[in-house]
């Protein structure tokens, strides 16, 4: 029997799905093994959870054991000459950059928030706004230690065990867990980036600007006004950011310090960050967000700030500007629907997606557009193309309609040869999953599952839904 004191109600980061589970927080590999043994002895399954930043149900395991890695958060080795660092899986992106930036190194790939753990980002093989350049985080990992269900630990190197490496990275915690991760960081010569803002008056222009700017960009991201219709459908504000070369920043010693990277404590100099979600709450509805999106677009059109320098953290971690911003969506939370479409079909597919959302009166309150490149990971979400991430508010009234909408969006994605991303997913069906992953990859994956976890000890709500 599991101790009731360990019972906790956990949520996916979007807040639209939750589950109670018995949570174990090991601080050593030995304690991790003990938790796995406990699960086996009591007939429970195990779900691995980092910081719980996956939007959907990827780190939830209903009424079973959840192993939370946040206490395994030690930096084990750091070489400021080579930029190679070895960390426990519970080290967060925040810990990582704060530790290395003063030596002139920055994580080569970061998500829109700095709070995920390295174990989590590697299990999901996350990407950033520089995916077209840098690929996914897995492409910067040199090696990792990996614990299988038997309790045996393996060393897996990118070069030495290429097949295994590319199968385990991105396997969303189904094959085992990382116990340490070694990765190479990106050398930077300034704590700032050169940022340039562009405005696209519709979806076609957005694609044009992306194609034009991609060769000159280190990072490129578009925010789309999901409410704009007709000839303005897909209008967007685009941010391009580039690293500064050696000698460009006159004060690198200053900009490469942590305080320079810290996000502002207040918004507009008045409102404490921690309270901002309260002010946002009246706007997280159809009318409010239409106003916000319009204001954001036009302020970019007429605003004076078209080119500026911005700290890495300020550019990268937009989601952290407003702590708990998801609370503004109310108790139903949100789901983010992100699909990845090959470039030849991307514009048409995204046009159809936006039109369908408007037709169904389920307009995404936030929409983000990015460029991607292919990679060689077994369970990859990446394509040589583009992605569109759509944030939907979930309410008791719209829930079933929203899930039905995602099925129709799935059909568009699949017919365009597109893919999905486990870190975001909350709605995908088993059929859609099989269809995009493909029978061959799925077969290989299930073979590995039988090898590393023959009893099916590692499960999540996501895997129960999809596998």
């Amino acid at each position, binding site marked *: 029997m*599991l101790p*009731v004191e360990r*019972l906790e*109600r956990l949520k996916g980061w979007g807040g639209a799905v939750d*589950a109670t589970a018995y949570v174990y927080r090991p601080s050593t590999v030995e304690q991790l093994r003990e938790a796995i043994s406990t699960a086996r002895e009591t007939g*429970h399954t195990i779900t691995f959870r980092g910081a719980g930043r996956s939007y959907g149900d990827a780190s939830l395991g209903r009424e*079973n054991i959840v192993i939370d890695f946040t206490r395994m958060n030690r930096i084990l080795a750091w070489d400021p000459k080579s930029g190679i660092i070895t960390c426990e899986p519970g080290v967060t992106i925040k810990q990582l950059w704060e530790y290395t930036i003063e030596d002139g190194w920055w994580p080569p790939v970061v998500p829109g928030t700095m709070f995920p753990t390295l174990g989590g980002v590697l299990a999901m093989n996350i990407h950033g706004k520089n995916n077209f350049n840098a690929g996914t985080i897995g492409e910067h990992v040199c090696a990792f230690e990996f614990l299988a269900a038997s309790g045996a630990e393996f060393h897996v190197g990118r070069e030495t065990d290429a097949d295994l490496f590319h199968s385990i990275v991105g396997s969303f915690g189904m094959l085992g867990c990382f116990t340490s991760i070694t990765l190479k960081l990106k050398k930077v010569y300034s704590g700032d980036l050169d940022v340039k803002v562009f405005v696209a008056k519709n979806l076609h222009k957005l694609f044009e600007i992306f194609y034009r700017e991609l060769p000159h960009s280190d990072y490129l991201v578009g925010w789309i006004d999901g409410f704009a219709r007709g000839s303005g459908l897909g209008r967007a504000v685009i941010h391009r950011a580039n690293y500064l070369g050696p000698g460009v920043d006159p004060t690198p010693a200053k900009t490469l310090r942590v305080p320079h990277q810290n996000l502002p404590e207040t918004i507009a100099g008045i409102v404490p960050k921690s309270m901002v979600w309260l002010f946002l709450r009246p706007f997280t509805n159809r009318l409010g967000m239409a106003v916000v999106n319009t204001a954001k677009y036009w302020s970019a059109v007429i605003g004076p700030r078209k080119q500026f320098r911005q700290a890495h953290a300020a550019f990268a971690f937009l989601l952290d500007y407003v702590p708990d911003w998801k609370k503004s969506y109310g108790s139903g939370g949100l789901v983010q629907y992100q699909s990845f479409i090959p470039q030849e079909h991307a514009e048409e597919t995204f046009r159809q997606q936006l039109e369908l959302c408007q037709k169904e009166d389920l307009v995404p309150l936030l929409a983000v557009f990015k460029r991607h490149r292919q990679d060689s990971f077994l369970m990859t979400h990446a394509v040589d193309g583009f992605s569109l991430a759509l944030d939907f508010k979930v309410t008791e009234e719209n829930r079933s309609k929203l899930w039905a909408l995602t099925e129709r969006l799935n059909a568009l994605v699949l017919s365009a040869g597109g893919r999905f991303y486990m870190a975001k997913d909350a709605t995908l069906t088993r059929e859609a999953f099989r269809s995009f992953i493909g029978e061959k990859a799925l077969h290989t994956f299930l073979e590995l599952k039988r090898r590393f976890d023959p009893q099916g000890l590692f499960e999540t709500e996501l895997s129960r839904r999809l596998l």
Partner: protein
Amino acid sequence: MPRFERALVIGASSGIGRALAELLLKQGASVAMVSRRRAPMEELARDTSRAFVYEADVRNFDGNGEVALLFQRITHDLGGLDLIIYAAGILPAIDEHEYNFEKDRATLETNLLGAVAWLNEAATRFEQVHGGTIVGISSVAGERGRRGSPAYGASKAGFSSYLESLRNRLSRYGVRVVTIKPGFIDTEMTRGKPGLFWLISAQDAATYILRAAERGTGTAYIPARWRLVTGLLKMIPSFIFRHLPV
């Protein structure tokens, strides 16, 4: 999506408990049913994958954490728990001059101690996860000490008091505790008993009870008119009450 997605009904083989399990299943909930009698529960579970059947006697609360173990198994099978209803209860026939300890013990063990054993498990869990609804089927019979059924009245008075204590403990954690005080319900337990009036069906009672559970009402009389009746009964002085045929 049903208001309660995962429910546990103890005493689900007959009467109000069975009607509640049936109604919850109809509303789309996953329902775990506990009772000594398996067959009636299996009948309810026949056409659905959302019903779970557990054969257990609520009077078996002495063993080595048997209730705790079964409770954890049930929450695991259900995938969580939003609602627990303790509907197990007995009302043995006793005549006016009978003082039968075995019958009284069975009554207290089924109606009160079994409830404490099961609902303590639920209370611990709900306090821990900050949410959940507990419903106890008590009775208007617990309002006054009647001549006809001393142990039954005592068990229901004790149960109501226990539920009120749980409510006072758990409300700060977002847990709702609902005391149900049914009047006369047409069930196996009451059938053939003299002096019954305002009888309603178990199905109607179940509808009222789930409504009260959804609202999180502290104490609900089923049907509501019993609140007035018991209010009046409570005002009758003891020296008069002892002469009344109740």
